[in-house]
């Protein structure tokens, strides 16, 4: 029995009077360690809000989000990353004044980022190991040839991979990906799904938000379906595919679109 790494417990989020997530009872689900969880739902279902609640960008109105025993709903944004939660953004965010390699190197928690370390020069010995690790990660995401490039020269898909690389160098306990296929060339999507399957195969815990249902059903091993901010269904891709509520609410709408 694997333990639950992330527990979303009776979470609600209201914007003014609007019940964005959780309705009255609250949204609850958990992510066991090593799971590849897909979070799906039609537009406006509350996927992004849920994602932001898990990653600590938004604070829940009630309920709690616990990562490995630590309450994210009261933690500061920078601490959440230090607790082991890695995330990407729906619109990729890179640091334009840094090179591709530096964008990844800056991702690591670095003891060299203190004034004392700068003063003593004690960051230097570690820098080489960090550089090697960053290069290794960049090779994994297929950006080896771009390491000295400026990020302005990267394509949308490459920026997404750069974000993933920046998180992987931190070795997060759980990695949250926000719409990884958005803006990515269909020919690259197959490559992306292989990459995610590889990460999962290494035992990493992944949570992927997508509106591209077919993409997720092929590779996730557990799926949470949201509708109107509430849990519609929760199960394996096989169960989800045959769930009539999901077919009515989501697949129907998807096929109609």
């Amino acid at each position, binding site marked *: 029995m694997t333990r639950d790494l992330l527990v979303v417990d009776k979470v609600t989020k209201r914007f003014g009077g609007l019940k964005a997530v959780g309705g009255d009872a609250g949204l609850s689900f958990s992510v066991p360690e090593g799971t590849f969880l897909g979070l799906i739902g039609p537009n406006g279902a509350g996927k992004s809000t849920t994602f932001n609640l898990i990653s600590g960008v938004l604070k829940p109105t009630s309920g709690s989000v616990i990562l490995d025993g630590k309450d994210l709903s009261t933690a500061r*944004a920078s601490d959440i990353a230090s607790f082991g939660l890695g995330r990407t953004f729906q619109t990729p965010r890179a640091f334009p*004044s840094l090179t591709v390699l530096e964008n990844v190197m800056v991702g690591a928690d670095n003891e060299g980022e203190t*004034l004392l370390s700068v003063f003593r020069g004690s960051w230097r010995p570690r*820098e080489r190991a960090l550089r090697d690790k960053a290069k290794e990660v960049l090779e994994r995401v297929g950006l080896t040839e771009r390491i000295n490039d400026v990020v302005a020269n990267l394509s949308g898909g490459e920026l997404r991979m750069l974000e993933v690389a*920046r*998180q992987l160098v931190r070795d997060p306990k759980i990695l949250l990906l926000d719409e990884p296929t958005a803006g990515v060339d269909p020919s690259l999507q197959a490559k992306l799904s292989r990459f995610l399957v590889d990460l999962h195969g290494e035992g990493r815990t992944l949570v992927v938000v997508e509106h591209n249902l077919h993409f997720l059903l092929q590779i996730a091993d557990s799926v949470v379906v949201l509708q109107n901010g509430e849990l519609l269904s929760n199960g394996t891709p096989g169960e989800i595919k045959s769930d009539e509520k999901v077919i009515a609410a989501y697949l129907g709408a998807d096929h109609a679109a």
Partner: protein
Amino acid sequence: MNTLAQTALTIVMFGSLFSVLTLSLNLQYARGGMINFGTVAYFAAGAYAYAIVTQEPPHGLDQYLVGLDAPWWAGFIAAGIAAMAFAILTGWPTLRLRGEYLALTTFAFAEMLSSLLVNERRIGNGTVGLANVERPDANILGLSENIVYAGAAFLLMLATAYAFSRLLASPYGRAIDAVRDDEVAAQAIGKDIARLRFQVFVLSSIPIGFAGALYAMITTLVNPNLFSAEVTFFVWIALVLGGERTILGAVVGTMALVGFQEAIRAIPFESVRAAEIAASAEDIVTGILFIVILRWQPFAAFARRRQPA
């Protein structure tokens, strides 16, 4: 010494001195992303701290309360501490603010300090200021005072440039760049934005305090008029002229601006009328030069070619 050499020496002296301010501003703004429109306040804090620590206790018509009569080096250290303390005081409540809001609050803090110095005469005799500021005897080295102080300003500039370049070349500099580029993304990789911004703000104010002490030594006078908002804008213009983000650019921009002003002042005038005309012409020519420089950015291009930062 002939006039040309005198002018050159003055340019090196004040150019180096104000370069320290430009370098600090470069770190705060171009790298740290914080707009400080109160630069002069940290400069004034350093100058006044130096004067108060080194001057004799009050007597006669003096209205100031404290004069410690301590040696110059104690005053110099006090100047750095005073600027740092003022940065902690002003940075703590304001650094959560972004962009123009931070610009306004830092400007307001500087105006408050200026007003305090004018009205609270027990600090430094109000508008009269503190004259005959103590300074080390330069004759010990057997050189003229101007050469000694120009050298001291140059050394302070080099030390500041060295310290900042060392900071920026480290993982710390990388983290600062990341925070300036995108705070949300920086938080997502665990960067403590508040800590980094505060540290950069406080750290970069220390050399400004030292420069203030040196300025007090050179002029042997501190009064509120010397520390008006004009100083802040002067430093900002120097930074823009030199182009942001390079250490060499900050220095070249400041030197060029000081050089231009000193060159105009060095022109010998036959009559008061001629000097008056020259003074107004200086403003016009300065304006035209700014436009020309901003259009073609010669100093920025020069600095970029020499040193990619």
